[in-house]
């Protein structure tokens, strides 16, 4: 499981970084989002994930049953907070990129005003 997560994190980071380095505005914004997602997966992995049942993830184990014992709630809280923050930042980035596109009249970030 850890190996799969490591590959996922690595892949997401590679894709995100690749997109960040593009000239096209929308790809850069997408890159921002993908890099953030990579860190979330990484954070969850840092909580220590063992192969196993659904009750490792509290979100999947809700009504009735007791609170699962194994999953680390701290990383889940961290990721939730980080998702909210990155959600706000991405929304801002989208609006900002639209404004910047209007002002600079090009989607190519390298041609923007300095």
């Amino acid at each position, binding site marked *: 499981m850890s190996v799969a997560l490591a590959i996922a994190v690595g892949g997401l980071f590679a894709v995100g970084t690749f997109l*960040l380095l593009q000239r096209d505005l929308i790809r*850069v914004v997408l*890159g*921002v989002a993908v*890099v*953030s997602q*990579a*860190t979330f997966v*990484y*954070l969850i992995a*840092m*909580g*220590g994930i063992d192969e196993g049942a659904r009750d490792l993830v509290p979100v999947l184990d809700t009504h009735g049953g007791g609170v699962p014992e194994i999953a680390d709630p*701290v*990383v889940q809280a*961290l990721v939730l*907070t*980080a998702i909210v*923050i*990155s959600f*706000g*930042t991405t929304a*801002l*980035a989208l609006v*900002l*990129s639209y*404004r*910047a596109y209007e*002002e*600079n009249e090009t989607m190519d*970030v390298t041609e*923007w*005003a*300095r």
Partner: protein
Amino acid sequence: MSLLVIAPLLVAVTTAVLTLALGRRPGIQRATSVVGVLGYVGTVSAAVWTLVLGPAAPGAAVYQVGGWPAPFGITLVLDGLSAFMLTIAAGVGIASILFSIRYVTPENQRVYYHPLFHMLLVGVTGAFLTGDLFNLFVWFEVMLIASYVFVAFYGTDRATAASFRYLVMNVFGSALMLIAVGGLYATTGTLNMADMARRLAAPDAYGIDPAPVVGLSALLLAVFALKAGLVPFQFWVPGAYTAAPTPITAMFAGVTKKVGMYAIVRLYFTVFAAAAVPVDLFGMTAASPLAFLAPVLGAMGAASIVVGGFGAVGQDRLEGVFAYSSVGQVGFIAVPVAIAAAADPAGTLRGAAVAAALVFALHHALAKGLLFLSVGAIEDATDTDRLRELGGLADRSPVLSGAVFVGLLSLMGLPPLAGFFGKLLAFDAAVRGLASDPGVAPALALVALLLGAVLTILYATRVWIVGFWGRETPAVEAASVDSGQVAVLVALAAAVVLVGVGFDPVYRFAETAATAALDGEAYVEVVGLEGGDGA
């Protein structure tokens, strides 16, 4: 546990919400905003006096948010270092908001300026107060989101482009910080800084393997250097600083940048210093991650001084000169910190060097705040800040020019201004560093400081001679300086002089702060961890 610790934060949040609610009544909104900052200054000084500096003060205090005990909940800690930084934030904040009222046009102030200003203040305050690593990340984000909007505030092509670049870079920085935070959590099993310091000091007792801390702390250093605008990460500084409204630029240079330096000092000296992590890299062998902070941060600081100095000399806009100068001046803060990292933990040099960095940070916040605000005043009066279109300002407005003169002199480091002591202490630390360890690296640090001082004199005199002496240009002749703006500038100039003349209490405050920064054990004790022994 004292309510005063959290009071500045609450005042700032409340003011942010109130100003947002009062968006339809601009007059009341502005009044609320000013009252809010005054309240902020009041609570900060009350907290600093009763908790840190006063005769009966305990020296540090802690606040457990929500009543959760230390390693589990979010802890806010006010110790000497936080108190010093909060004082800087309060000082620059009040000047900046008073200047904004007179400077930013009422239409621009109307809806979001004041709420955002207070959110910036909230982020900064939280970052200075928090005793929790992840919480530090959250406050960084609060601060940054407000900054993005401010950089894009005027909505021109340059401003939006600068803001977008600033945003993309900082999002990447935040991703790196999250990685470091997550890694540290996985390594030490805690996010509370005090708990982390305690566990790292005795890894065996807690059954943790602290080896990854070296790499993770390097990641954190990169992130904080990005926020502080140190050299390999300095390229966002000029664009963002020139795009933002000048009162906000004063906040950026005076306070936001210092958050990065504060985080470096706090994490390395308070948390990682005691870490029993053997480092064996690139031929260096040392007992804690501090050992490699010294050469890396020293090189970054020295490079910042040189790049910032040369960059400032070559600029043709006042705002550009001071933006590059900011890069250089942060180097002057970083180099003493590096010297402190290299110094013997038992000696007095380490404390003296950190105090030097703090005094320089205070000087830079005041002087650079003054200079950026005066750029705003000049721009407002003459509609330009291009050096070649300025000239003869000294005749046109002697009071404004006098304030700028004080700022420039302080930047150069002339006695008895604040900058003199900043530079004096930085050089003192560098010389003592060289004396205690005669080698190439400390000598290079000293050379960089000297070169930086020369370059500062060069660009400061250039600004003065080109912009203020000589015949009045058409732009200057048509200028009418706003007296309200000048009053703020004069007050700041007076503060610069006062800090220099009455330097003794300031230095004692800085020393208290440095001691607090270095004493990890006292920090752990103040936080008062409950339970959590053994992983």
